[in-house]
């Protein structure tokens, strides 16, 4: 009998239960209830977000596969396709940082290779609590080692991403992993269970009791009992995953697979029902045949286990033997556990008894969609009205400059990146730490550029504009390596959607992202929503994270992130405005997270990016860097710090803007381009033609960073000192 306690344990409401009864025409048994509970969880069913996600543009000229499959697919020419997707593993990473993050990597890798693509890069977006607290350091260390441990062993380079710190992430760290794969464009595999009578084959690791109800766990807030949820986290085996990759790709190449789906969240439940639902078929399986790691597992546990490194394959009966031969060569199991049927039911037998008999459509497609109440939180208007204080007369801008480059959000993340193998597969030509990562495509002149971006403070102050800016900035990052954006994947990290204020933040952010994607004419190919990032009522800042891929026509034109020579002209594209709201400066000097997020004018933004791309294409640009957190001064400092020889700069600025805003304001649509002096004029001419404001503001050289404002020297710091501050900031928390 299903009572309220059982429903609460399954995170289902009475109304949801009643509709289950209606859909299957009787009371479900406990196993069936478990199946509905995971498939109708927020994590799998997107019940609070579905109505808004429809606003994303999902068409584009390069699009091969949009949302609804394991990953999005874009055409990149030469018969190739890029396959990419982002996933969150926030909840597990807080409970068990190493395994939580490791299995996050494992899960997204499978999403990519289940489509027939070889994973060629991983990027991570990580958000932790401030590092001065030991517990936050321990989470950060665990997560970074988990990503490193899994990705390095699997043999996929982790080429970029971002790392930020804020107290709102202390008990809700965010771990978003994006994977990019390459495939032949006419050999994409989908999650289909076609052909009545075809064999359903289980491949990979055995099923254990780990991860049961992982998806349900990720669909509720954390309370004081979080510790007890440790058993819900799965354990990863990257070695098995590597074998699974090679075996799957080999079986695909040999034409032995009709449909394939990885067993991620909700394991066997999700793969069986989704494959059948998408093909309008059914499936009949025998749970006794499922390879099991532990004795005495019951149907509930077998169906809901989230054991890692498993896949479900559908193929014709005559291909079963050759398929098994491929898997056995890679020392993996491939076991026939059932067949495709025509009755649109999922039927499962256990010890000779029929224990599951439910319509797959009801499970997969009829999850309720909620239009939850929305209400703008009072604080949003209050924060936006905040008046930026006058610049203190005694403020030492030189000191602020030094402190900003050492501010953990801005400082060097090498401590993180050097734990990741970012070079394996020898394609990485722009290493982590640049604006966007670039992989060369061997045998062509082309490069695949990718970036992962988020700015949660802007989204907190103004979620819609925050959503717009994150898309604009990601595209700007791609422009800095000469790439045009092609497609988007997104990971939306928010608090509890049952709270109207959170739901409002979500709705606004989605609208902002949707608008920006339309402006840039790039489709959203999929993504992930992570709600309930909330512990004891404290939600994270709304944190949309965008992964965007683009193409570089000729990798030889890609500029460096750092200065390359002395006496080169520094060109500023775009306009400095007096904007300090939501800036790192305001946070550092005034300890305020207030004001209005910077303005964004899409036409200006697009023109600035186009000038940047054109200039790069014409080989005029030696160095390019976008201006973001920390403003113009920090962007210049980064170019200097990243130059191999520690080249300084001298920049002269004018204009009526207050000096602190000029140096550290975070106005959008600005890029620094550095060129040989003789080429600077050509860049300015390009800019004039596209009606973009551009100006030579100074030149590279010397061993100091010097900035003048209205004929007054406002900043002067030795490169060496700034470099040390930038590089040592994060390692010092970890004593290396």
């Amino acid at each position, binding site marked *: 009998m299903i009572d309220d306690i059982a429903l609460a344990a399954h995170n289902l409401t009475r109304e949801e239960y009643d509709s289950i009864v209606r859909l299957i025409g009787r009371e479900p048994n406990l196993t069936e209830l478990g199946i509905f509970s995971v498939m109708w969880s927020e994590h799998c069913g997107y019940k609070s977000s579905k109505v808004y996600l429809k606003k994303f543009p999902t068409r584009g000229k390069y699009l091969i596969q949009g949302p609804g499959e394991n990953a999005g697919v874009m055409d990149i020419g030469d018969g190739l396709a890029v396959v990419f997707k982002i996933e969150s593993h926030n909840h597990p990473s807080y409970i068990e940082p190493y395994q939580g993050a490791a299995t996050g990597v494992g899960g997204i890798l499978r999403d990519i290779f289940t489509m027939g693509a070889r994973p060629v890069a991983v990027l991570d977006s990580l958000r932790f609590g401030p590092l001065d607290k030991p517990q936050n350091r321990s989470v950060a260390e665990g997560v970074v080692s988990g990503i490193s441990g899994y990705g390095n062993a699997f043999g996929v380079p982790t080429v970029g991403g971002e790392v930020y710190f804020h107290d709102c992430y202390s008990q809700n760290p965010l771990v978003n992993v994006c994977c990019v794969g390459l495939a032949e464009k006419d050999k994409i595999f989908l999650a289909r269970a076609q052909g009545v009578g075809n064999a359903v084959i289980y491949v990979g690791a055995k099923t254990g009791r780990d991860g049961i109800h992982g998806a349900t766990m990720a669909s509720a807030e954390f309370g004081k009992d979080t510790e007890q949820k440790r058993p819900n986290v799965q354990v990863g085996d990257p070695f098995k995953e590597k074998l699974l990759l090679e075996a799957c790709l080999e079986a695909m190449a040999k034409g032995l697979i009709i449909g394939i789906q990885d067993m991620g969240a909700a394991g066997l439940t999700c793969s069986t029902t989704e494959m059948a639902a998408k093909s309008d078929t059914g499936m009949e399986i025998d749970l006794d045949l499922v390879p099991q790691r532990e004795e005495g597992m019951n149907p509930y546990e077998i169906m809901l286990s989230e054991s890692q490194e498993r896949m479900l394959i559908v193929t014709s009966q005559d291909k079963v033997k050759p398929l098994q031969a491929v898997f056995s060569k890679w020392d993996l199991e491939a076991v026939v556990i059932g067949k495709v049927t025509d009755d649109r039911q999922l039927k499962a037998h256990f010890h000779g008894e029929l224990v599951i008999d439910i319509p797959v459509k009801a499970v997969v497609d009829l999850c309720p969609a909620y239009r939850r109440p929305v209400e703008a939180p009072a604080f949003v208007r209050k924060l936006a009205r905040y008046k930026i204080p006058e610049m203190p007369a005694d403020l030492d801008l030189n000191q602020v400059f030094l402190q900003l480059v050492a501010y953990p959000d801005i400082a060097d993340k090498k401590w993180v990146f050097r*734990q990741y193998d970012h070079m394996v597969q020898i394609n990485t*030509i722009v290493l982590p730490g640049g604006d966007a990562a670039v992989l060369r495509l061997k045998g062509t002149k082309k490069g695949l550029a990718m970036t992962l971006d988020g700015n949660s403070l802007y989204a907190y102050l103004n979620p819609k504009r925050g959503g717009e800016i994150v898309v604009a900035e990601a595209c700007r990052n791609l422009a800095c390596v000469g790439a045009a954006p092609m497609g988007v994947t997104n990971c939306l990290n928010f608090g509890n959607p049952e709270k109207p204020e959170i739901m409002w933040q979500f709705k606004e952010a989605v609208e902002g992202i949707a608008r920006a994607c339309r402006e840039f004419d790039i489709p959203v190919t999929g993504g992930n929503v992570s709600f309930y990032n909330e512990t004891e009522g404290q939600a994270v800042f709304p944190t949309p994270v965008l992964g965007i891929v683009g193409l570089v026509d000729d990798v030889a034109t890609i500029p460096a992130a750092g200065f390359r020579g002395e006496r080169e002209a520094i060109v500023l594209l775009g306009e400095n405005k007096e904007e300090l709201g939501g800036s790192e400066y305001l946070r550092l000097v005034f300890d305020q997270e207030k004001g209005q997020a910077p303005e964004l004018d899409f036409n200006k933004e697009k023109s600035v990016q186009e000038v940047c791309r054109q200039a790069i294409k014409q080989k005029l640009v030696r160095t390019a860097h976008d201006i973001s957190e920390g403003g113009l001064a920090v962007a210049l400092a980064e170019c200097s710090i990243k130059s191999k020889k520690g080249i300084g700069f001298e920049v002269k600025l004018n204009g009526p803007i207050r000096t602190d805003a000029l140096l550290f304001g975070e106005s959008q649509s600005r890029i620094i381009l550095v060129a040989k002096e003789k080429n600077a004029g050509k860049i300015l001419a390009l800019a004039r033609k596209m009606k973009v404001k551009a100006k030579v503001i100074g030149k590279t050289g010397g061993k100091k960073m010097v900035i003048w404002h209205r004929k007054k020297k406002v900043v002067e710091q030795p490169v060496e000192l700034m470099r040390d501050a930038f590089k040592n900031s994060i390692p010092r928390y970890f004593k290396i």
Partner: protein
Amino acid sequence: MKFGVVVFPGSNCDYDTFHALQNVMGQETVFLWHKASDLQNVDCVVLPGGFSYGDYLRSGAIARFSPVMAEVKKFAAGGGLVLGICNGFQILQESGLLPGAMLRNKHLKFLCQPVYVKIDNSRTPFSQAGRKDQVLNIPIAHFDGNYYAPPGVLTELERKRQIVFRYCDERGQLTEEANVNGSLHHIAGVINEQGNVLGMMPHPERASEKIVGSDDGQVIFQSIIDYLEKRAGSQKKKAAKKVRPVVSPLPPLIGNL
């Protein structure tokens, strides 16, 4: 010359090494499956980097039991050239073909970064294309690369000039800071007494093209090629077979042998 790149379950630099040898250096290259008992008549065997058998138990500890390793041992005993890179080096140690063992890196973290190594002995088949004390820029990527051997063994290694590469700074100085993983005597690569089996932690295949940051790794491959060509020349004129590279953004199926 013909190279063979061994594929263990969990090897992940196998194709990278293949690419460097065949597509960059223009040498005929084949994959050798870990269950194989035939080395296909290659002139040099390369054990690539990666995580053979997941590096479970201990890095390289399980791979040494692979059938192919019995053949590699025979090949080495007959004077054949064997190069172990990273995990390949660890496997050679576990197999007893090279002295010493690897401890975890000194800060207990995986390290992936470009490093400088200097050639300490340029009179080996693996380093003869370089000069003594030449500094090479080649990346490392490992967790267990902190070279250890008992004091007596180290003394012998020094005396017999078996230390081929040492971690150093850009100018060739053996500073503490440059010794990123904490290896004894800054050891980055050692050769056996007979001079035909070399293990190195840095990845020359990751430094074989300028576009990925450095092509200093070519020194190692070129040394092997020069040595083999000379040896072949003195025995019988083995026609230098240049291979036309087939470069594609997608690697071939490695297991499809």
